[in-house]
């Protein structure tokens, strides 16, 4: 018996595990290891209106229990996604979450409009990319703009819209409430934490972009805390992510309040991580008499 199927914003997922945007491309690179149908869904690489070349290299720096990246939303643009990636993805029997990012509110609205009527199951509106100069985190760190972008996308979309939040803010609950008030169907968090590393021999930052987003197990406790706070502040479902690497992490972030879980950087260390997490969660349910994983969402008993 599958105890892992969840309904998130009216969309049925066979399990709550979704590779996070930017860590899994469009699934093509991992298909030779296991069928993509094993996964609850895939949040595809951040897609912009036009093709982007991204930031210069180096774009990655290792950190204790994690990494920094400064890819800068390199992608082929929404038209290529619709004509080349989506037709392939729809044959894979997994939910497709289109992650979109615009540099202006109008661009975000246009992206949403382009996805209207497509086979995409959900939209994840990225208002939190730390690696781009326009849009990105500039949207996600201001309550008013975050609300305006959300509304513009909702007004132009026929899909459930989940808004991906930045942890690089004073109060993530205020941003969450603002996007909820403007029609967001869900929120996902956390995007990466802005960080920096310096090569002490050259005095130069390791990343060519100087700064980048921190992910991996190092950020997991921050993610758990923010998911818990946001889940208690809004009435829309929460998709939790940030350093989830094991099935125990996935259970923990669900107990904090996440109904769907994204797995990101862990895939770089172990490409089978999502599969192992799914298997471990199923066993956890069986061992603990849990009929459906949704029963544990938000069940943390705070002191």
């Amino acid at each position, binding site marked *: 018996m599958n105890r892992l199927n969840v309904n998130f914003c009216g969309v049925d997922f066979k399990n709550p595990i979704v590779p996070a945007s*930017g*860590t*899994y*491309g469009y699934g*093509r*690179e*991992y298909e*030779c*290891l296991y069928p993509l149908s094993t996964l609850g869904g895939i949040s595809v*690489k951040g897609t912009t209106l036009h093709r982007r*070349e*991204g*930031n*210069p*290299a*180096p*774009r*990655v*720096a*290792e*950190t*204790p*229990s*994690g*990494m920094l*990246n400064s*890819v800068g939303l*390199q992608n082929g643009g929404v038209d290529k996604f619709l004509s080349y990636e989506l037709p392939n993805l729809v044959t894979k029997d997994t939910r497709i979450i289109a992650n979109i990012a615009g540099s202006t509110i109008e661009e975000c609205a246009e992206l949403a409009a382009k996805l209207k009527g497509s086979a995409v199951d959900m939209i994840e509106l990225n208002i939190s990319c730390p690696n781009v100069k326009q849009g990105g985190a500039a949207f996600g760190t201001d309550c008013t703009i975050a609300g305006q972008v959300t509304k513009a996308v909702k007004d132009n979309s026929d899909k459930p819209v989940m808004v991906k939040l930045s942890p690089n803010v004073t109060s993530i609950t205020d941003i969450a409430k603002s996007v909820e008030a403007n029609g967001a169907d869900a929120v996902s968090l956390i995007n990466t934490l802005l960080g920096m590393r310096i090569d002490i021999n050259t005095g130069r930052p390791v990343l060519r972009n100087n700064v980048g987003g921190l992910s*991996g*197990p190092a950020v997991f406790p921050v993610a758990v805390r923010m998911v818990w706070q946001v889940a208690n502040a809004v009435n829309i479902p929460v998709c939790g992510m940030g350093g989830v690497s094991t099935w125990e992490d996935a259970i923990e972030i669900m107990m904090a309040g996440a109904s769907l879980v994204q797995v990101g*950087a862990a*895939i*770089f*260390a*172990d*490409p*089978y991580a999502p599969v192992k997490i799914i298997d471990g969660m199923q066993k956890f349910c069986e061992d603990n008499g849990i009929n459906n994983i949704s029963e544990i969402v938000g069940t943390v008993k705070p002191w």
Partner: protein
Amino acid sequence: MYKQGKYQIVSKKNLAKGIFDVEILCPEIAELAQPGQFAQVAAEGFFLRRPISICDIDKAKGTIRLVFEIRGKGTEKLADLCKGQLIDIIAPLGKGFKVLEGRKIVCVGGGIGVPPMVGIAKAYGENAVAISGFRNMAAVILQDDLQAAGGKAILCTDDGSAGRKGFVTDALTEQIAADKPDIIVACGPMVMLKNVAKIAEANGIECQVSLEQRMACGVGACLVCACRTVRDGKEIHSHVCKDGPVFDSKEVVFE
């Protein structure tokens, strides 16, 4: 097509100061591997895997060899692994060198760029000339392997303490004059690759270079290992792990 797993180390050698040669029993990977491809190697206690080029492939024995240099704490950890222990690798990854049946090749390696020349020289057998360059005699590695590959092996050192004194590019120019190859392949420092590419172009010879960049996934999903290339007259960011590590030298922007 690649595999991920923990495989047994069947031999480990210290080739020079800080340079190690690890032979791994992994028949399914050896079967798939092509010269010029690489492995993503997990170092215990470190989050990201280390990309290491495949030095040699023995399909009959079911082994591959990885030769790497200690560059930091992660590779230092890898150097601690011993014969009989398991090593966690994802391989074979990326695009390897072209193997042109019955054609002549010159393989040019500099320093820690020499290891992948063993596999490709072997694939061309007696049609291969391998030119390798090192700082000095103490840094010289893999000469027996390059000689056993089938063709000629030319050793260069910057200070003349072993082989001929001078750069690999001088030896390459002489070799082209003596016996023009159909293809040149190279791996080593960027400045060496740039000069090899120039010589190849001036002589109208096809040239492939193997590039290096910091990586995360190693399979083409995360896009961190960007390198500047030219396609259809436009400069774009390609990715060393999936589009490379081997590129046609005419595509590469050497800065």
